[in-house]
């Protein structure tokens, strides 16, 4: 477990770099939501979750479900850095016969707890895991990362209702509140506000944080459960495409291939960030890996 905030920030910069490499190799994928949720997942995997990459099925481990499965490349990058699989594997993302699909598969990727992709399913599964822990009097905790657009699904609110009904203070949901979904800004497509009030009304203890402030994310996750006998909800205000200038807050980059000039700029930006953290990177390294740019249309 890493408590040094600077180290966590550096890991996040490394993961951002890894995402760019994976996306360039894949020639497709979902960049925007991966970058917005990355800092949260970095803190979870390096600071919060009790997990053991050498024993992914350790029965006392905390459980993490990436309900917004399309952000898989961020999960893979963080899991790779945490030691679940090597860089060579990471760079097979979305390639033929890879274990790393566009949406994570629990039977293929060690350490992935639940296969996700279709939105609105993850929170119910988390409720089931948290209920099982209570039934068995086990101390592991369950974390579910949701997309904000995803919470337009009715099943999310069914799950939210049941989590508070069963007083699941061992369950934490984090919403990547980047305010953008495929068709545009959430508040234009199907408004979510007043968002915190909705979760509170459903019986959750709610905190809103800056989803890119590593220190704040880590400190908030240390406070859970926010209230005894209540599930905890963290609304993480984030920026879609965070860290890549042309992607930031731009709905276009929900699921667009990173290639050409865009790839060059993204690469430069993540390398620059890494240098700021004292890590020199060969900017051309990505071209040396066996991956290939696919689906260039």
């Amino acid at each position, binding site marked *: 477990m890493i408590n040094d905030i600077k180290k966590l920030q550096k890991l996040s910069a490394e993961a951002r770099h890894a995402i760019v490499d994976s996306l360039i190799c894949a020639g497709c994928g979902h960049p925007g939501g991966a970058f917005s949720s990355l800092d949260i997942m970095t803190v979870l995997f390096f600071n919060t979750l009790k997990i053991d990459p050498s024993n992914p099925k350790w029965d006392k481990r905390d*459980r993490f479900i990436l309900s917004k499965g399309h952000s898989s490349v961020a999960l893979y990058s963080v899991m790779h850095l945490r030691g679940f699989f090597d860089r060579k594997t990471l760079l097979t993302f979305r390639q033929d016969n890879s274990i790393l699909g566009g949406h994570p598969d*629990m*039977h293929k990727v060690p350490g992935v*707890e*639940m*296969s996700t*992709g*279709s939105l*609105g*399913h*993850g*929170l*119910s*599964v*988390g*409720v*089931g*895991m*948290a*209920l*099982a*822990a209570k*039934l*068995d009097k086990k101390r592991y905790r*369950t974390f579910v990362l949701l997309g904000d657009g995803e919470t337009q699904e*009715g*099943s999310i609110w*069914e*799950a939210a*209702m*049941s989590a508070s*009904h*069963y007083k699941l203070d061992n369950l934490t949901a984090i919403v990547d509140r980047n305010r953008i979904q495929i068709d545009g800004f959430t508040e234009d497509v199907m408004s979510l506000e007043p968002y915190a009030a909705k979760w509170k009304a459903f019986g959750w203890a709610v905190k809103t944080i800056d989803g890119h402030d590593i220190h704040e994310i880590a400190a908030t996750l240390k406070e859970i459960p926010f209230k005894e006998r209540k599930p905890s909800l963290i609304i993480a205000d984030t920026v879609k495409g965070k860290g890549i200038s042309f992607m930031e807050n731009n709905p276009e980059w929900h699921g667009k291939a990173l290639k050409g000039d865009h790839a060059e700029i993204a690469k430069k930006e993540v390398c620059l960030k890494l240098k700021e953290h004292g890590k020199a990177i060969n900017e051309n390294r990505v071209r040396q890996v066996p991956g290939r740019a696919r689906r260039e249309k």
Partner: protein
Amino acid sequence: MAKQSMRIEYGKYLAGLGAKNKDIIVLEADLKESTQSMQFQNVYPERYIEVGIAEQNMVGIAAGLSLSGKIPIAHSFATFISMRACEQVRTTIAYTKMNVKFLVTHGGISTGTAGTTHHAIEDIAIMRAIPNMTVLVPGDVREMKQAVDAALAHKGPVYIRLGAGDAEDVYGEKDRFAIGRATLLRKGNDASIITTGTMAYEGVTASDILKSKYGLNVRVLQMASVKPLDVKAVLKAAIETGNIVTVEEHNILGGLGGAVCEVVAETAKAKVKRIGIQDCFSDIGSAACLMKEEGLTVENVVKSVRDLVRS
């Protein structure tokens, strides 16, 4: 032959299973009296989870429990599991091969005057089309108990469908249910009747009449395991008896009749007549009235077999 309520007998049996298997967790979506899951709740309240009217959530919770080593049995009406929560069943349960059992009641049209919204005539087809899913439709209380046991012993998702009404006993002492195997209820080589669910009764009764009245020896195969289907038994029936009549409380599209036709069309020369709901929504009526309207009667099975044999 004795008539018994499948649901009440199921509830009793489930409550009994609680002691034998501590991993069983029962889930219910506000229908505990209809599905009789309350009989389990009465004995094991700590292993009973009520989710309210929220089937999608129930299916997801079942997945989470299963990932923690439990054997969840989720209850509801056939329509709500197979359609309301269909995608959760497909993606969250079947794709991931979760060890979750669905016990659904009110399959078919036996809910009668409750109306079309509560009739499940598509569920077998939907569940059959989902990879990794096992689909069981037992015909009487003895077969139901054996099917539940088999489902619990099977690692992976299983859909067990019961009707709403009573079931006549058709299983003999020696009959044994097994997943993927048809049960031979009557021997014969003049034609075959393949049934599923409580239509087994119509099948055996029709066979008995065909023998006593018309001197025909008609084989009856009860196919409680609709998926996996006993392909060998179907092929044998096609080759040895030529004519097959299928009977099911379900749309003729995609259910037992569809499954039998798929096998026969690819491999054998035989005629198949499908008795079931003729791809239409049901009218208002009692179960008996609707069954008559849809031709799910002993008389129609007898007539269909005779027509096939004579043609």
